[in-house]
């Protein structure tokens, strides 16, 4: 199996803000890499470099066997990009949008028309195909945008937050479509802020923070990196948290984390279900009222927290507007 995307030491600065700080990653053919990180972590910048939209300050990247800087047109022939915003022409119909993209990939008139019809069918847009895209719902626009990125059947697909802003039903639909593409052999790099999405779609996850990949592996590998299972206890109102904490300390060997507000305690455990039974017995003996007690595997949020020291939803400061970036650029030049 070959490598479809390879990036080494990508650096991109906007003035004093470092958007990419030596990012390296690799995606095997016909697999999905999930680039997971908070806003401003550098996910979109990485996608922009890999799709030839942005020149990195240093570092190299190869997509579908071609260097993005030396052979950008060869790369463009082999990739599809679907961004955070549905990049479609609102005053063209869905069909016209797809045909236009086909013509711009130089597929020829007849073939472009065929592809447009196929994709409308596949993305359940046949009925809306001859209406201008302005009349489409958010989910339909996203589907049309994804369809546009697939016109030339590219072997490598970049999806920048493909489900951000979609309702749960549209999101599930999008996940099915993406899974289908990968089954057909497409390599996908997708960025997401949603742990659930990465968990569900990605073969490999690269956790990104401050412009760098800070951990990568399968979801299970990342979770085991954080440690084993955890005992998750919610104490009944009125029961002393201190007593509960003391009991958990005895079981886990270390002091559990205590959230006073939700009356929740978390502690790492080595044993399996037996530990759960022991915990119930000891807590009962100590007179601690139990609202909820569970043994759970660490979530990707736990992974994120243990790797970065902050939750995945925390926003970090980054220049997001064109003006800010430009000002930053100017201040360096």
């Amino acid at each position, binding site marked *: 199996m070959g490598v479809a995307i390879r990036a080494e030491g990508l650096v991109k600065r906007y003035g004093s803000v470092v958007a990419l700080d030596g990012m390296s990653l690799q995606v095997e053919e016909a697999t999905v890499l999930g680039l997971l990180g908070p806003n401003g972590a550098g996910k979109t910048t990485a996608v922009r470099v890999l799709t030839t939209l*942005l020149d990195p300050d240093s570092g190299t990247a190869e997509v579908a066997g071609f260097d993005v800087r030396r052979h950008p047109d060869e790369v463009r022939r082999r990739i599809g990009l679907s961004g955070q915003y549905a990049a479609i022409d609102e*005053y063209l119909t869905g069909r016209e949008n797809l045909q236009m993209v086909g*013509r*711009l*990939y*130089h597929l020829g008139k007849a073939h472009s028309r065929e592809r447009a019809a196929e994709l409308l069918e596949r993305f359940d847009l046949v009925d809306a195909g001859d209406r201008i895209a302005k009349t489409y719902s958010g989910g339909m626009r996203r589907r049309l945008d994804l369809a546009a990125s697939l016109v030339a059947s590219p072997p490598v697909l970049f999806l920048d937050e493909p489900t951000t802003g979609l309702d749960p039903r549209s999101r599930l639909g999008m996940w099915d479509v993406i899974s289908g593409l990968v089954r057909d052999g497409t390599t996908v790099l997708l960025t997401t802020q949603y742990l659930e999405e990465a968990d569900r779609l990605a073969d490999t996850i690269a956790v990104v923070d401050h412009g760098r990949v800070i951990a990568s592996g399968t979801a299970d590998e990342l979770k085991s990196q954080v440690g084993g299972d955890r005992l998750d206890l919610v104490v009944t109102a009125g029961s002393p948290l201190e007593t509960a904490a003391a009991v958990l300390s005895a079981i886990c060997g270390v002091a559990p984390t205590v959230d006073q507000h939700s009356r929740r305690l978390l502690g790492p455990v080595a044993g399996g279900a037996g530990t759960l039974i022991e915990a119930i017995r000891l807590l009962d003996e100590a007179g601690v009222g139990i609202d909820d007690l569970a043994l759970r595997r660490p979530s990707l949020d736990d992974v994120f927290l243990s790797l970065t020291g902050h939750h995945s939803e925390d926003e970090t400061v980054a220049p997001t507007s*064109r*003006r800010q970036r430009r000002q930053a650029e100017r201040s360096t030049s």
Partner: protein
Amino acid sequence: MTLLAPEKVSSRLSHAVNDSLVLTMRHLRHIPRIPELLVFSIVQPIMFVLLFAFVFGGAIQVAGGGYRSYLMAGIFAQTVAFNGASTGVGLAEDMAKGLIDRFRSLPMARSAVLAGRTLSDLLRTVLILIVMSVCGLAVGWRTHTSALSITGGFLLLLLFGFAMSWIGAWIGLIVPSTEVANTAGFIWLFPLTFMSNAFVPIQTMPSWLQTVVAWNPISATVQAVRTAFGNTGVAPTRGFWPLEHAAVVSVGWSIVLIVGFGVLAVRRYRTASSR
């Protein structure tokens, strides 16, 4: 890298033409679907014709007296110049919507998005000039030359409009948002069009200003178009070289602007980013 095989050059060229035409079609499809845009870009010059003909017309004296004849070439030039600015607004909008990102990620010619837009804006300008001519004829404007000469006058206007479109394209790509494109694209056109011979005879201005006005590309264009339409009896060139060779100077200005801003705009497009 610098030496390309001839067949590669020709395939590149045919791609560039194909891509530009595909995008020209895109914009032409827009015209009937956003009728408001066409209506307002026609209403504005008509409004100017009427305002100048009836409100200012009485106050502005031109030798020979036919201010409405004098005025039309000026209004034509102003209109094609303002149409250039709308090229920029359209590009800024494509940028804000992420369409430029999509186009830049496709294996298409780097000049096509700009060429497609400036070409379709040129065709829109043709439509607007036709409507304005009818309006001009209605308020008493007449031509006094051969059909060939009149055609030449309109071609000069279109070439100049195309040049202004490339300036607009460049502005549309350097501004941070559609809103800014809307003001930045137009504001400089007021001094440009008013500091010219478009609306008032040049001899009424202070002499230092006359020199500036004479070298304004709008003035050369207006002067050349007036000559082509036979509306000049009343517009002396006062010994200014660019006005005495107005047609050549107008074409020269247009070519310089198209090449200069074409290069600037395409260079900007290569690194344009949507956000």
